[in-house]
């Protein structure tokens, strides 16, 4: 059976080279990096090597700024809560957007229950933050600005360098959630004025079980997982050496191949959208058009008159792996906060599908997906009482209404 994996945004296979690099670290080199003996010191050297690989990939001159966590979510929690706890003597106000990943949004919501306050700047219908809104939200109490680099639902690339400049002018710490961007989009922590940047290697052919938070020398954070003195007291707990080794190599390779990979997935993205929009009626793209301002791996569409889970299941039955709503939380099938933030009509949010492309997808696969998905939409519409009502003229199309 044909199998097409179009959910690279939720996870990717570990590269063969990365896999090979990890293998010795399970049963042969198994020391705890805190230990003072050959096994432990070897592990410590491996950590240092990975710190270099990560810091170089984001143009940082400070490998010591790399803090290893267990995943992107934890890195984001550390950035948000760690900043809040470290800077609460200066103020207790945080600025984010309405379209952050739940790991940022829910960390901020947690802090709000513990005496902090937050301003959520809006995004427009394509998901863009207006840097002027950030500027306007800054108060003398503001200690942190946190925004994503590329949106995990609709691929919108934010003007992070502009926001960084504003943050610097106001001497406010700036955290960029680059969990969906690192490995795919260029990152330069200096130029972006990023005090903190998070990275998630399993999005670019590295392993699960490792996340990274990079902190520049001026940024202040407190650890949020307390215990031993690992990661210079910024993250306690025995380090996951194999995943860190694999993650570091995946980062290095992703950076080397970044432009090649990005231009390939962008071509696939364009072909996919062209195919879908030509063969399916009442379908719309969410987020910016493919191009400079959209993550090349993400295609988010809404197909009117049908619901998301049925599409996922029929795609799966056709061997096609896709996501719906939020790529990270499709299990609960509640529509994603981003879709609400861009003001997407509720029925379009429910019919939402995210195709996310990977470096190994082919043009033939895209053709197969277009053909299959067209049939799936037809089939579900045949079953849908809404489609029937629309055909009979009882209800009108949200998408057609907008196009007029």
């Amino acid at each position, binding site marked *: 059976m044909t199998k097409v994996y179009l959910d690279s945004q939720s996870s990717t296979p570990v590269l063969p080279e990365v896999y090979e690099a990890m293998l010795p670290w399970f049963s042969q080199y198994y020391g705890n990096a805190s230990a003072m003996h050959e096994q432990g010191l070897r592990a410590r050297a491996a950590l240092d090597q990975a710190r270099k690989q990560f810091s170089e990939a984001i143009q940082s001159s400070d490998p010591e700024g790399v803090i290893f966590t267990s995943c992107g979510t934890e890195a984001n929690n550390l950035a948000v809560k760690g900043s809040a706890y470290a800077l609460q003597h200066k103020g207790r106000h945080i600025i984010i957007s309405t379209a952050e990943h739940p790991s940022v949004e829910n960390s901020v919501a947690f802090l709000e229950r513990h005496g902090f306050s937050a301003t959520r700047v809006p995004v427009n219908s394509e998901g863009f933050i207006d840097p002027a809104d950030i500027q306007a939200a800054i108060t003398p109490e503001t200690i942190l600005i946190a925004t994503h680099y590329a949106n995990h639902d609709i691929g919108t690339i934010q003007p992070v360098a502009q926001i960084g400049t504003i943050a610097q002018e106001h001497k406010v710490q700036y955290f960029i959630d680059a969990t969906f961007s690192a490995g795919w989009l260029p990152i330069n922590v200096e130029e972006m004025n990023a005090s903190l940047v998070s990275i998630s290697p399993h999005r670019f052919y590295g392993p699960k079980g490792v996340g990274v938070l990079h902190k520049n020398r001026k940024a202040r954070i407190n650890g949020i997982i307390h215990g031993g003195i690992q990661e210079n007291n910024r993250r306690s707990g025995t380090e996951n050496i194999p995943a860190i080794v694999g993650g570091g190599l995946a980062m290095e390779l992703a950076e080397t191949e970044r432009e090649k990979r990005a231009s390939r997935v962008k071509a696939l993205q364009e072909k996919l959208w062209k195919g879908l929009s030509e063969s399916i009626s009442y379908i719309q793209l969410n987020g910016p058009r493919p191009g400079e301002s959209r993550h090349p791996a993400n295609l988010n569409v809404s197909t009117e008159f*049908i*619901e998301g*889970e049925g599409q996922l299941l*029929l795609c799966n039955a056709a*061997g096609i792996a896709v996501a719906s709503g939020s790529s990270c939380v499709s299990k609960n099938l509640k529509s994603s906060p981003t879709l609400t933030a861009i003001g997407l009509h509720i029925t379009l949010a429910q019919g939402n599908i995210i195709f996310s492309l990977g470096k190994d997808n082919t043009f033939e696969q895209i053709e197969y997906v277009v053909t299959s998905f067209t049939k799936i939409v037809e089939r579900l519409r045949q079953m*849908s*009482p809404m*489609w*029937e009502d629309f055909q009979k003229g009882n209800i009108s199309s949200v998408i057609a209404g907008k196009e007029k």
Partner: protein
Amino acid sequence: MAEEYNPYNPIVMDHFLNPRNMGDLEDADGIGEVGAAACGDIMKISLKISDDGRISDARFKTFGCGSAIASSSMATELVKGKTIEEALKVTNKNVVDALGGLPPVKIHCSVLAEEAIKAALEDYLKRHPEKAAMVATNSHSA
């Protein structure tokens, strides 16, 4: 292998992938539509009911998730051949049991199916008040 990894059990998957009685009925004797797009599910059930008060045919159309589609499919199967009185007694639990179970968060789909059947029957009874009286009598005497 794909069969092993599904969010629903094989009966539910079968009713989702090969729905029974999907579509409309020309000259339906009763039609029930429940749910709302904003809530994620709409179910429409059409019934053909013979003069002796037996459901001779049933069809569904559903906007909703896999278990909503499977629940509608199963509900139409359950009521086919039943009398109005019997069909009125079909509960969401009967639908869930016949499907071999649904995940806890999806039980509402079976409730919607029960409601759609009831709505279709009520529509029929509204159009046939003489039968409504009979049903009422019967169920009282039951």
